[in-house]
């Protein structure tokens, strides 16, 4: 590109910006509507991507295979004898029984996830709770959270009261997965649910290095046909599908709200008023080529859509990663009573941002050029007759 071509681009860009400045009201309205639309869409994209990423990171530490016993199509307690037979399968490195379950706390009106933990086995009467549990037990509505040495009374399955003392709280960073969690010693867990010592909720199986979990799961099903093996990969895919589904739901809900805005923006962007048509006629009459006018209109459309794109994406980034996704929090996180308060780890999928760019900026820019092209192809002498 030679110097005069660069100079021409600069002049045309200058006039495009000055033309936009002359129609401040229309252009500010367009940028605002467009920014809002992009903000909403980018917020959904960032939320879903980040939650999927968060889920993937969290699941890295989960068991490769979880074995559950099924009775009449529902999960039932699994005998510990199953662990012995599974541990003999070739490729299995270890088998650990787990005890966990859901507990409805009538005082707080919330469901907790109770889990036995081996590190607490010699600390009967103690427990570690998630931040959601701590918040939910503020019965007196004094904004006081449960802390160390506070007591939660659990009602056991046979009607007795078992008070447990808070000895620790999970850090806020883990709240996505620990909000409703209560860790306790195995003996207390068995008391609350009256589970026999020869039974567990499920078994977690670790495959040896290089061993195929799918093959091992197949062998477990062959030995114990009444069991179901859940692979980590399956859980991850389920999480991703759930977050995609929730993201899709938000987009569907937003579509109804955003549609009128988009129509308004479309109408504003694609309609040339009499003054704009007159200006195009003048430019043609004084020697501008159709391509020069289209270039000017291209810069106008590009300036609006790029400004809106960057503002929308930056606002969405702030909304999701700095303001904890306040607009979509409840929809994306789930239906639990104990909504976790957490800050998502910033994760931006470049492919998704590029897709957003190509699905918004490019069509908008093209759409704004089309009516100008119609006006720019008229005979320049039309301006002589205005």
């Amino acid at each position, binding site marked *: 590109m030679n110097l005069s071509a660069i100079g021409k681009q600069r002049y045309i860009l200058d006039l495009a910006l000055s033309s936009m400045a002359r129609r401040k009201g229309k252009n500010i309205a367009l940028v605002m509507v467009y920014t809002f639309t992009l903000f909403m869409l980018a917020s959904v994209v960032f939320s879903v991507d980040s939650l999927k990423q968060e889920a993937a990171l969290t699941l890295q530490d989960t068991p490769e295979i979880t074995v559950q016993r099924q009775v009449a199509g529902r999960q039932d307690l699994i005998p510990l004898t199953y662990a012995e037979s599974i541990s003999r399968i070739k490729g299995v490195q270890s088998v650990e029984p787990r005890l966990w379950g859901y507990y409805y706390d009538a005082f707080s009106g919330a469901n907790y996830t109770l889990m036995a933990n081996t590190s607490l086995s010699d600390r009967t009467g103690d427990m570690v709770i998630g931040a959601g549990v701590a918040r939910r037990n503020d019965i007196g509505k004094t904004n006081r959270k449960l802390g160390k040495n506070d007591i939660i009374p659990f009602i056991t399955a046979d009607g007795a009261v078992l008070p447990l003392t808070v000895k620790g709280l999970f850090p806020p960073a883990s709240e996505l997965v620990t909000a409703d969690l209560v860790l306790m010693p195995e003996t207390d867990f068995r008391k609350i649910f009256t589970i026999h010592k020869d039974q567990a909720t499920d078994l977690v199986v670790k495959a040896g290095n290089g061993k195929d979990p799918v093959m091992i799961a197949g062998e477990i099903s062959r030995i114990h046909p009444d069991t179901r093996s859940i692979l980590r990969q399956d859980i991850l895919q389920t999480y991703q599908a759930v977050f995609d589904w929730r993201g899709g739901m938000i987009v569907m809900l937003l579509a109804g709200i955003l549609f009128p805005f988009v129509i308004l923006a479309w109408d504003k962007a694609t309609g040339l008023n009499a003054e704009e048509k007159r200006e195009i006629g*003048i430019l*043609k009459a*004084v*020697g*501008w*080529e159709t391509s*020069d006018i289209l270039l000017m209109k291209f810069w106008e459309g590009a300036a609006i859509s790029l400004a809106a794109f960057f503002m929308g994406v930056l606002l969405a980034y702030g909304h999701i990663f700095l303001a904890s996704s306040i607009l979509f929090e409840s929809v994306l996180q789930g239906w639990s009573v104990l909504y976790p308060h957490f800050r998502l780890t910033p994760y931006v999928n470049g492919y998704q941002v590029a897709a957003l760019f190509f699905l918004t900026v490019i069509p908008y820019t093209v759409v704004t050029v089309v009516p100008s092209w119609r006006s720019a192809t008229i005979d320049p002498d039309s301006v002589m007759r*205005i």
Partner: protein
Amino acid sequence: MIRLDNIRKVFNPGKPNEFVAIDGVNLTIDAHGATALKGPSGSGKTTLLSILACMAQPTSGGITVQDREISSLSGQSLTGIRRKTFGVIFQQFHLIKGITSLENVMIPAYPLGEKFSTLQKRAMDLLDLLNLAGKAYSKVEWLSGGEAQRTAIARALINNPAIIIADEPTAHLDTRLSLEFMEIMRQLKKDGKTIIIASHDPIVSESGAIDRVVEMRDGRIVEPGGVA
């Protein structure tokens, strides 16, 4: 020199509202002179000016501008000729509102991409020549009628065209400003420009700056020298 050979311009051909605006005009305009096209409204003056200035193409006939036949050229080629050869002054001035007088003057040269300082100096020189340097940075909507027209004249001159075309330039000016305008045209003719003005204002046709008056009626030339 400009030569028109049997030019016809028909609007909406073949339709019920077909209208013959120019009907077989033959005309030769010499270089470095001033020609006035005179005639009542609807006589075809503006249409003929549009064709002369390469802003519209005739339905039939030939046009030669500076020894070059242009009637068969593409729109893009005509734009290039229009930009380099013609400077047009419109009846309504047609300045772009919201920008300064100086910017309006510079606009026709933007697509040429020349250095900003060079272009700005040339535009300022033209405004100075037309006693408008003091209004260079005023937005055009704040200019008086005479100032707006002088801005339009400066804009027509920015690419140093050989031919100046003006359509009813005095229609919105009082007598003093009309005489002032004709004085500027006289000066431009003296500088070697070819001037073509369409007007039914006697101040134009009777001005000493005009060398030849071509009278039009119903799309035809009725001047003794022009053949209908």
